[in-house]
């Protein structure tokens, strides 16, 4: 079942399904492409940003970006 | 106040310093503002999305 990254509360491994939204170029350019593995590491003190591991490196995303990323377990 | 060698040097230094400060804080800013920076990124520059 596909959910948005913004809704994931606990760490875990996911598969990127789709990137949607009005300004997604930079997310794609950073390597968040459909079919790639994405690991949710943790959330910052007030819930966002969320820290993920993608293609072997760590990235921090705000809620607005996390909402653009559809993932699947 | 008598005008001796030391007084001369002291006033010479003052003159140099005044020229330096005018150049630094008056002339250079004026010159800079004239050559308008065309690569400047301000509110109207949309390179910030």
């Amino acid at each position: 079942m596909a959910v948005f990254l913004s809704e994931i509360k606990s760490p875990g491994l996911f598969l990127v399904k789709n990137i949607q939204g009005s300004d997604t170029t930079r997310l794609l350019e950073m390597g968040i492409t459909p079919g790639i593995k994405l690991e949710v590491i943790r959330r910052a003190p007030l819930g966002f940003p969320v820290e993920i591991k993608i293609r072997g490196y760590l990235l921090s995303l705000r809620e607005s970006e996390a909402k653009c990323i559809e993932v699947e377990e | 106040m008598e005008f001796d060698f030391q007084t001369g040097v002291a006033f010479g230094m003052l003159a140099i310093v005044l020229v330096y400060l005018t150049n630094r804080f008056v002339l250079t800013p004026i010159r800079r503002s004239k050559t308008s920076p065309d690569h400047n990124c301000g509110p109207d520059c949309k390179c910030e999305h």
Partner: protein
Amino acid sequence: MSKEPLTIALVGNPNTGKSTIFNALTGLRQKIANYPGITVEQKVGTSIIGGVLHKIIDLPGAYSLNYKKLDERIAYETLIGSYEHEEIPDLALVVVDSSNLDRNLYLATQVMDLGIPVMLILNMSDVAKGKGISINPDLISNSLGVPVVAISAKNKSDIDQLKQKISESDLEVPEPLKWGPDDSLKEAMNLLINEWIKPYTNIPESARSIEALRLISEGEFNNAFYQFEKEEKGKSTIKKARELVEKGGGNPMATEVLSRYNFIGECTSNASSITSQTKASLTDRIDAVVTHKVAGPVIFTLVLLFMFQAIFSWATPFMDMIDLLFVEGGNWVANTLPEGMLNDLLVDGVIAGLGGVVIFLPQILFLFFFIYVLEGTGYMARAAFVMDGFMTKVGLHGRSVVPLMSGFACAIPGIMATRTIENWRDRIITIMVLPFMACSARLPVYALMIAAFIPSTTILGIFTLQGITFFGLYIFGIVMAVLAAFVMKRIFPTGQQTPFIMELPAYKMPKWSVVFQNTAERGKVFITEAGKIIVAISIVLWFLASFPKTEMPVLTQTDNTEYNSSFDVTENPESYQLRHSFAGQFGKIIEPVIEPLGFDWKIGIGLITSFAAREVMVGTLNTIYSIEEEDGESSTLKEKLINDVNPETGQPVYSIATAISLMIFFALAMQCMSTIAIVKRETNSWKWPTAMFVYMTALAYLSSFIAFQIGSNL
């Protein structure tokens, strides 16, 4: 193989080791300049490779040529030769982080489309190896079609290998569009190039396909940096091109990126392999603690507290030494040189003024040392991650943390560093509140006031009341910045949440030579830039304080009754001279305005001169007090302040209330010409610096007024 001198550009993602390679190649043959009209630093140097002197340019870090921020645009523009003073590079060295190959190669495939020779540097080989990643450079080279060299920039012999490879380079231009755009994207590019880019813009031929791709992805041209005609035609052609892509089943925003990543995947899947590790890496283990929900903010606060306590206490012995040196030096000159005006000017103007500057060098060096260490280790990004939630609440941005922290050193680099904030509104709010951060120029004033008027009681064993006051002043600045940002967030229309995509680089031991070099550079800039102005102003001040020459009326017992109020029996001739000098008269004029804040005319002079730079205040007081002092032994400024008495009342001039009021005034007032100048340059209008000056100074006056009135009535 080339024997011609070349222009070689280093390009790559941030934190891949470009600067390290640049330094290794150029050694000391480098200079830092600014790009015309903007304040981004450009590093250019020369290097002898294979007996030929080449020019090396270090470009700002970029993730993509489809720029989203100024740094990236500069890298792009330099590569396509759009700057008049800089020709198109003859060779682009794309520096990539081997431990993070895929994302790094994205930029590499873009640079390969620019029609210039490319060489790929797989840097950080040692790091990749440690992560269990092994890469075959030859296979990468084959599939990309560019020469590849794997190095570790920290290793001297690897740099020699790199040089060797450069001198052997045949400077072949890589095959364009090797990543293989699909037919509809190709068609769309050709349409855009032929119908608009080629006839109506001055984009260099080699850069046309990259620009076409950029426009198709963006869908609009936002104030393009190049010249163009027929804007309407441009817009409609971009629209047509995007429609072509959509007809082919692609998404104009994604097609190019996905094709490139497919191509990269093919290249790396057979050329690199990873022996998977199960145990958490060091970075993961550290992050589990420092980015923890509760521990993270606590650690961040402790880091700051430790930093400022250390700056204050570790620097003290050095400062005392410097102080002593200048006092002794002054005495020596005073006694060696024949008496006269030059003697006075040197001792009371130049040496006293200079001493007032140099004394703060230790603190500045410590501060920048810490900042560069935090940056070099990768902790700064964690601080931004941990703080972003809090920062967005008050209208700032996680990325504001680093500029704001740089603001502790100096508002100017901090304001320049706001360029990493992509959203204009976030950026302007950060700029507007940044000068509240206690910059190092305030240190002198804080340090002097604290040393003179706050007792050094020890608290909790390791902290002193002085250290805590010092820390408190920094916190005060932060709180004011937050409040101001909160108010501004209400004033400026709220946009939607802005993108915040930030890499958290792996922790590294900072390269100490770079840390020391950068720290020394800051110190040098402080001494030469601030120092020049301060000494100049000290000289002017000395003249203002020494003229017009007035003789104190000679005292006799008989005409004791005839003295007017401006003359006091206990006053010495120097003080009398100062009060009647130009400076004294001017200070007297503004005295009524600043009196409610607890300031006298001497501080008034200091406030005026400190507009040149805040630390000038101390130099000014130094000058005023050394002039005022009776001939004989010099004592330190601190002692003079404590002992200064008002000749009319006999009370000490400085009460604790005055000291606190003055520190608050310095914490809040916009007293720095350079900051105003830089804000003007960064925002390209006088509106923002004017607003900044007015609101900060008003706030300072009000706060000091309240503080002094409360303090002196307690």
